[in-house]
């Protein structure tokens, strides 16, 4: 089960204040980067819930985010539905699709689960790429942002939009913690550790997996909706498996199964990418080497490393060390 400790609270407060500071002081491009981080953070939270607490390592979360983005774009432009309703519709649709994927894949484990989700993600990608209604390779433009002018907020301003995303991210984080602390979340962790035992206890395992996957899909869908609103333009590249792969990298880089870690990972990844791509077009090489170095250090990501090193000192009684080795073994039954 997910627990906060002093370190986690400290990092959360630190991250939130850094984001707020950035939001109020940054120039235009700094705000773009901040928003990018916030949206990626939503996606990796969604992924961490299923991968870190349910052992369901998904390679279709990028595609789910894309489904949310496309659903919102089509509902709000082609169908002409008001943005708030279109947002709800897009999130619900993504959740339903994710629930179905979770249900279908619930029997697969480890690498097979990864591949099955990859298959669904690639199906969505190919379909969006080729169906004319989605604009194909050229994508769709003219997507409107949510209108909050009735409370005096203009989301077309970069700063307001970044703050809006920050608020949404905060809410998503809260909901994620609630999900993981609920009976459903506890059952999920039980399933990850010993599926047979949970089944023997009378739990409908596939339902637990599907429900959590559906909830996680809703979060990914919301991230997609905000991504579409942020860029105001979407293209099939959003659904590509490399997006899911990058999200997975961020989750693991940050610290699988820690919720806080992936947030750190998202910030580190985006900042690193932008700093490097400004210097060299070969930034993939540097990112690759850093990735390898972080993993070779044998820590559970950046945050896991911090926790392992200083967590105990900060919090002697509420040590988390018992959970980490298990979190690493999610693929062990493959």
């Amino acid at each position, binding site marked *: 089960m997910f627990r906060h400790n002093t370190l986690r609270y400290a990092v959360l407060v630190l991250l939130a204040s850094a984001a707020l500071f950035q939001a109020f002081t940054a*120039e*235009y*491009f700094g705000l*773009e980067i901040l928003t*990018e981080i916030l949206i990626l953070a939503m996606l990796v939270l969604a992924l961490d819930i299923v991968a870190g607490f349910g052992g369901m390592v998904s390679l279709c979360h990028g595609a789910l985010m894309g489904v949310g983005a496309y659903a919102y774009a089509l509902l709000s432009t082609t169908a002409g539905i008001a943005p708030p309703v279109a947002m709800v519709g897009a999130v619900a649709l993504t959740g339903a699709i994710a629930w179905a994927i979770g249900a279908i894949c619930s029997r697969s484990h480890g690498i097979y689960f990864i591949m099955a989700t990859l298959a669904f993600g690639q199906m969505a990608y*190919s379909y969006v*790429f*080729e169906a004319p209604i989605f*604009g*194909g*390779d*050229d*994508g769709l*433009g*003219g997507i409107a942002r949510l209108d909050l002018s009735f409370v005096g907020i*203009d989301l*077309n*301003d*970069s*700063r307001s939009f970044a703050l809006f995303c920050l608020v949404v991210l905060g809410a998503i984080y809260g909901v994620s913690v609630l999900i993981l602390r609920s009976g459903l979340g506890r059952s999920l962790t039980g399933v990850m550790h010993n599926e047979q035992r949970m089944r023997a206890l009378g739990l409908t395992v596939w339902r637990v997996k599907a429900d959590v996957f559906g909830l996680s899909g809703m979060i990914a869908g919301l991230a997609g909706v905000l*991504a579409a609103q942020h*860029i*105001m*333009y*979407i*293209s099939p*590249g*959003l659904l590509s498996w490399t997006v899911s792969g990058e999200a997975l990298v961020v989750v693991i880089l940050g610290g699988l199964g820690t919720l806080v870690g992936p947030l750190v990972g998202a910030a580190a990844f985006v900042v690193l990418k932008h700093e490097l*791509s400004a210097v060299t*077009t*070969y*930034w*993939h090489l540097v990112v690759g080497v850093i990735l390898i170095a972080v993993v070779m250090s044998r820590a559970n990501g950046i945050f896991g490393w911090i926790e392992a090193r200083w967590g105990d000192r900060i919090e002697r009684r509420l040590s988390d060390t018992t959970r980490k080795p298990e979190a690493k073994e999610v693929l062990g039954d493959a």
Partner: protein
Amino acid sequence: MKRATLAALGLATSIAMPAAAEDIKVGLLLPFSGVYAALGNEIEAGFNLALEQFGGETDATFEIVREDTEVKPPVALGKAKKMILQDDVDVIAGIVSSGVLGAVRDMVHGAGVPLIVANAGNDEATGADCSPFITRMSFSNSQVNRPMGMWMHEQGIGKVYTLAPDYAAGRQMIDAFTASFTAAGGEVVGQEFTPFQKTQDFGPYLAQAKASGADAVYVFYAGGEAISFVKQYDSFGLKAELPLYGSGFLTSPLYVNAEGPAAEGVITALHYVPTIDSPANAAFADAFEAANGRVPSEFAVQGYDAARALIEATKTGASDRASLANALRSVKFEGPRGPLSIDPSTNNVIQPIYVYETVAGEDSLTQKVLAQLSAEADPVNGCEMAPVSN
């Protein structure tokens, strides 16, 4: 942040920053990584060459900010916004993929920043989605394929099988060809679109083309797909019985040597061939080869002419966003491709199209120009915009 607000709303029609005297800040927005990195480098090489050769003709000086689009529309849009809002560029040039152009279109249009397109050929950019701020110095997908339909029919080819990758550009290119070929009296006996960037083995499609009973095959492929396609076409021995025609990107000088002897005898049409016989082209081709050690491709000439158009525009005294955009729309000069002008009703370039055959040269493949088809403006395609102001 008021300016950001206005621009994002699309309300700001012209936020012209009066540049210091005649110092023009140019944003070069090209892919330097990803699948089109080679094209980005080629266009930049052409762009820089023109600044070097013709920069002295104008009083303006140019400062270049370059950004990598990574061929990802969202990345490109972020970079375009940065150029416009943070770097305060006066003009943007570049853009290779149509997807990227579609993504930045509303942004540059709303902010009133002139954009010189140096590759992306989607018809809509100078059709339904045209903008007085977007001038295209490269080509449109229809423009380079339409003349070939008539020409092939004139050569006595009655039945054709077509193949292209399954994405917007592939369909536009083939549709333009099919329309003019059937209008001329020809018949398209079969048509297939292959999964874009996922097809490596064209064998299944080639067998179908062979069985279709066509007199010839007309295709559009580019880059790595073009290399695989031309080689596999030849390996099946189809070239002799079923001549291969296509859009000229199929045998671009950029990668025709990787295709090797398989490309010999392939007849294609394009807006530029390095062997065009004119003093302007000779001067360009020699200088490009001296600087880069390779024959210039159509992409290089697009970059070259994009910079040239910018220089021509500054010669009229234009120096801010609005006046540059306006001046770019009436640019006219004689370049390596021949006489170029901008169609004021769509902002697309008007240029001759060359039909050429790839033949064996002294030590590498070269191009033999078979015909120069006259320059034609694209139909307006639903483009509505304010006329050029004087």
